[in-house]
């Protein structure tokens, strides 16, 4: 990195520009919850450091080369009746220079690149294993350490590395939480891995990044980074063999019956610890307390939930959630009341929705 300091003397102006750019990027995090430029995890931070190295060089090269181009265009503008300019055919010295200088810059980019490739390749020890299963078009998460399953809303503890084991039951997807890490593709018949440690509590968006069919665009999920105590509380509540849900009001009781008569329970279970076999839809444990529904795409309001229950194909055409039996507006209200009651613990979002 010593050579870099030689160059940086030349580019004080650029330094200021870069600083401005980075500042702008950081300031943007609230407006851009899915941004890659404001990492909140170690993996994403290492990636961002490499990225910023390339940005600095790119801006320097951009200014120098485009500057030379624009200068030449204005400086050497001619008129048709001007005498023929000197017929120069080339310069060996220049060819060597402009081969060597980019080569040196590339070495300066390659060194941190390779260092980070190897640094991110190894999962740190004592990591919490989470198995991620991609489905067309939603996400399933298993915690083998706790024996619990959830969907579309992933909880991770702040400060403990999570070791993700990725696989797919159908086509290729890509698991991506920009604030915490880069992407890792999710394959059928092949396990891939990625890891990160969340450093800040909050509710962040993630999204499938590999085209996977008609609803690739709405295959999102939420990732809740919980303070360790909140995380443990969530795990404990989810682990209870039978989820203690008190269904008090009559609307919710009606909803419970509709959940059976409308055949919802053919695909969905509320049991995070030992769901019955054959549940092909997302596990709904704690659905009442989730921040988003419909694979991380709709805010979990009563209105959105009713809309989703009544007409999943209207919002997500081609989704595998096809209603076997039509649901009326009133029935939807009852189902919403029932689903809303499915809260295994107090809402776990400490830092609020980001």
């Amino acid at each position: 990195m010593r050579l870099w300091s030689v160059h940086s003397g030349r580019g004080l102006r650029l330094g200021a520009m870069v600083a401005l750019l980075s500042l702008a990027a950081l300031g943007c995090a609230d407006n851009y919850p899915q941004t890659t430029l404001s990492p909140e995890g170690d993996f994403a931070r290492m990636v961002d450091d490499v990225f910023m190295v390339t940005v600095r060089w790119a801006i320097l090269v951009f200014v120098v080369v485009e500057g030379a181009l624009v200068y030449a265009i204005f400086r050497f503008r001619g008129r048709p009746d001007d005498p023929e300019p000197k017929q120069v055919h080339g310069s060996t010295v220049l060819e060597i220079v402009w081969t060597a200088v980019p080569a040196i810059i590339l070495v300066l980019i390659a060194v941190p690149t390779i260092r980070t490739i190897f640094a991110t390749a190894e999962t740190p020890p004592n990591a919490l294993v989470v198995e991620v299963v991609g489905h067309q078009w939603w996400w399933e998460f298993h915690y083998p350490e706790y024996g619990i399953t959830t969907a579309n809303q992933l909880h991770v503890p702040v400060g403990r590395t999570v070791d993700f084991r990725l696989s797919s039951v159908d086509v290729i997807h890509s698991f991506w939480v920009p604030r915490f890490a880069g992407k890792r593709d999710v394959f059928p018949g092949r396990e891939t891995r990625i890891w990160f440690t969340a450093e800040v509590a909050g509710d962040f968006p993630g999204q499938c990044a590999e085209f996977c069919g008609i609803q690739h665009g709405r295959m999102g999920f939420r990732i809740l980074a919980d303070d360790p105590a909140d995380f443990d509380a969530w795990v404990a509540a989810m682990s209870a063999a039978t989820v203690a849900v008190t269904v008090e009001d009559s609307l919710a009781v009606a909803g419970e019956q509709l959940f059976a008569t409308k055949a919802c329970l053919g695909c969905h279970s509320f049991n995070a610890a030992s769901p019955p076999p054959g549940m092909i839809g997302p596990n709904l444990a704690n659905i009442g307390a989730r921040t988003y529904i419909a694979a991380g795409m709709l805010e979990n309001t009563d209105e959105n939930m009713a809309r989703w229950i009544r007409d999943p194909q209207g919002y997500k055409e081609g989704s595998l959630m096809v209603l076997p039996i039509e649901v009326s507006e009133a029935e939807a209200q009852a189902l919403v009341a029932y689903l809303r009651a499915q809260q295994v613990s107090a809402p776990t979002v400490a830092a609020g929705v980001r």
Partner: protein
Amino acid sequence: MATSAVEHAPPQITSDAKTGLWSWLTTVDHKRIGIMYGVSAFVFFMIGGLEALLLRIQLGSPDSTFLSPDAYNQLFTMHGTTMIFLGVMPLSAMFFNYLIPLQIGARDVVFPRLNAFSFWVFLIGGLVLNASFIFGAAPNAGWFGYANLTSVQYSPGPNTDFWVIGLQILGIASLAAAVNFFVTIINMRAPGMRLLRMPMFCWMSMITQILLLLAFPVITVALVFLMVDRYFGATFFEVAANGDPMLWQHLFWIFGHPEVYILILPPFGIVSEILPVFSRKPLFGYAAMVFSGAFIAVLGFGVWSHHMFATGMGPIADASFGVLTMLIAIPTGVKIFNWIGTIWGGSIQMKTPMYFSLGFIAMFIIGGLSGIMHAAVPADLQQTDTYFIVAHFHYVLFGGAVFAIMAGTYYWTPKMFGFMLSERIGKFQFWLMFIGFNLTFFPMHFLGLHGMPRRVYTYPEGLGFEFWNQVETAGSFVLGASFLVLIWNIVVSKRSGVPAPADPWNGATLEWSIPSPPQEFNFPEVPEVESRDALWAMKRAKGGTLPEPPRVDGSHIHLPNPSVKPLITAIGIGVFFTGFLLGAVWPMPSVTTINLPIILLGLAITAYGIFSWAFEPAE
């Protein structure tokens, strides 16, 4: 064959069918074939552009329902497939066809009928692909068609069959043309035109043909695998049967990365012709330009996995492919510096072709720099499959290739059609395109870095994607309008424009030594070449200018006969593949007693075409 025949051939009256539809259907004249490539590619290019505008309308607002999700997926798949295979590649083929024989001082390509065959097969392939729209079943699995999404299970409709069959047809056209142009450049150069005296466009074209010859067989193998999987239940990519979707990715990108250079090297050649002429100064570092082009081509076969960093190949593979990818920046940089070296110290004449060429350099630099960002593998893990990548490749393929093709269009239209395009409208078009292009594609850098994935048919509110998407959509319409200005320019200039002299730009290469447009035989006498920039040397030897070359009676010049056999053979291939397509509908792709006869009929027509072609007198 045409050129070598001239010295000893007896005078012969060439075919009199020089006008009318039949003359176009049977032509073997490289110039007419070039024009047909240009016109059809431009039509396909406009279709691809319209598709892009529909995509942009959909993305102009969050949660838009302007397009259905499947319509969006069909349109983005067809936009990519069209722009690559039916737009930019055949626009380059237009220049190969029209210019290579003229620049090397030849009467035609080495296999004129094969050349016609290439064009007809290309046209049929393009029509087959676009016919899918009629059935509402355009390909919808992306231009990269990743397995196992393309399996019958996950893509049951005929959409993917249109894609797999259309691309196979187009591959035949590309391979036949590549053989033709490679052999033409090797064998048909005028006396004295040694390889290192060739115009740079011919050099970049020759390297492109080598890339085509090596890359297209790979995609063909992959497509045949996929077709056999779909039609005959093979399991190359079927996980449940121990097939592997990763196999597709490797095969596709071993083709796909060289394909990028297939798209960009001819434009490199085009601007390398234009910059010296409008700087009145030879190309700076000719040999460095040749070797950097060759080096890019070689490296192009060693970097395919940089499209796959997110697949988790492991640190050794990631580091190797990352570093190899970075290496490409070196020869690419050499080219950019030599272009700047070419205009440096020149007497720059700001004509429209020069505007587009300089715009090309300026935009290509940006695309090159973001390319280095992807080569930094960890950074790519964030960038891949986001709009940052979409920004990158549009800066190289639109800011690069399409700007250069526009430069070439303004530069060579006088030669091809005998009239000058309006400079005033041309410069207006340039600025419209330059502004529209940057409005459309520069904000994609921001969106990608802020986490907007590619290939999503919509995005929710609240992720901060609204503003830049609106700007891009507005920009895309400015960009689209710039092509209407081009059409306007062509119409206006054709009607009332200035007739083009043989050499309107003080050109350096042989095509400017003959009348505009050239006569069918190109050169009344085969030129003798003594140096690079052959025409400049000839003009210098005569004190600066040459007299306007007269149109001469070429009836004594022996030219290949027109032939309908290439068209028949191409139709046979079209029927053969259409037969498969007819079996692509419900319940699953198959060959049955209904479509087998059509497949066999196609084979029979193809066989008839080839045999009658073989026994038809060529001259």
